Structures are given as C-alpha cells and as structure tokens.
C-alpha cells in the first residue's frame, strides 16, 4: 500500500489534515506528518521529514508520496531525501499537488490498493479541481 507524508510549516495544520484524511479515507493508509520545526516554531525540518518518511515505511507502506504546503518546504524536503538510505529514498515520490485536496484524493486512491503511479496521478489531478467560482 502507498503511504503519505504531510509536510507543513505548521504542526497544527499537518495534524488536522491527518485527522481529516483518516476520516475520509479510513485508517488503513499509513500517514505521517512533519509539521513545524524541532523547537515548535513555524517552519520545516529536514530531520522531522526524514523521520516521517521512515515511520511511514516502517508502518508498512511500500511507497510514500510526500505532499508539501508551500514551496519553501521543498528545501527541507530535499535535505531530508539526501539523508535517507538509498533503499528508502527509492520508495519516495514528491508531489506538486495542493496539500489538502492532494492528500485527501491520494489517500482515497491508496485505500483501494492503487500503486504509487496511480496515487501520484490522483493527487496531481486535484490541481484541476474547481471548488468555487471566483
């Protein structure tokens, strides 16, 4: 099964999204969060992201899709990916999907046993979702 890692500058945002994803897609999909800095401030932390990826793989995910809130999170994410063992790194895919929509649709797709390509495509498809006129 594909697991998700939710990266946000805010620990509260990441945790809230994890709760929402579990409600919508069920508890079977491994989801870990990396929100905020090590000392509890807004920001992102490479060690926390690496830890979340390892935790998701350890929870039984065959592959991991990482979603981020803002582009600056990608700097920490790249450091985190460099820190991973190559065996783990090869099972990680980074998504450019919007965080909330992407996480929800990716988790639903993962929950029906879809592979990483299908889950990543579903998340990216969320970019085209229209929520409201305007």
């Amino acid at each position: 099964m594909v697991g998700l890692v939710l990266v946000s500058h805010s620990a509260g945002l990441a945790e809230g999204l994890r709760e929402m994803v579990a409600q919508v897609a069920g508890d079977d999909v491994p989801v870990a969060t990396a929100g905020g800095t090590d000392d509890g401030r807004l920001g992102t932390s490479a060690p926390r992201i690496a830890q979340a990826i390892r935790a998701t793989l350890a929870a039984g995910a065959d592959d991991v899709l990482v979603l981020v809130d803002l582009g600056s999170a990608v700097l920490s994410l790249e450091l985190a990916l460099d820190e991973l063992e190559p065996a783990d790194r090869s099972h990680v895919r980074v998504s450019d999907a919007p965080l909330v929509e992407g996480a929800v649709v990716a988790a639903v797709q993962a929950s029906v046993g879809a592979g990483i390509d299908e889950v990543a495509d579903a998340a990216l498809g969320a970019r085209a979702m229209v929520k409201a006129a305007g």
Partner: protein
Amino acid sequence: MAEVRLSVLDPAGLHARPAAQFVRTASRFQSDIVLGIGDKAANAKSLVGILGLTIRPGAQVSLTADGPDADAALSALLDELGAAVERVDGTNP
C-alpha cells in the same frame, strides 16, 4: 451495460466522506462505472472526478456500469448510497 437514474435526497449533497466511500466501493469492481450529471460525467473510481461534479441536493444523476460485473456494481453502489438517493428511473438491475 446497466444504468440507473437517481435523485439526490441528502440535504448536504454528495460530500467528501460519502464520495470517498462511493469511490472505494466502485473501485472493487472491474466494470467501467460513470457518474453523470447534466452534460458532465466522471469516472466513479476517481475522487477528483466525483468531487469535481459538485453534486448538490436535488440533483438528478445517472449511474452507468459497463463490464462483467456491471449489475453487481450498481447494486453495491445503490446500497452504499442508501437513503441519500432515490431511484427515479431504471432498467436493470
């Protein structure tokens, strides 16, 4: 090919959580399953597609399945939707 026409009764329309459950149920079947509303249609196995339809209360929708397990798929999806919809027309199943 099996098709049913439905009226959406749920006052909230089709929200993320029931939509996700609908997609999960549809994904269990081999048949191609399409949810249509007006001139729009979406793959019932895609949450992006279903949420993109913006199904509001009172909407008339069609649910079509084409494949070896089409009848079973529609039957399971109607069970899944339960009291949220009412059949307004149907040939089979």
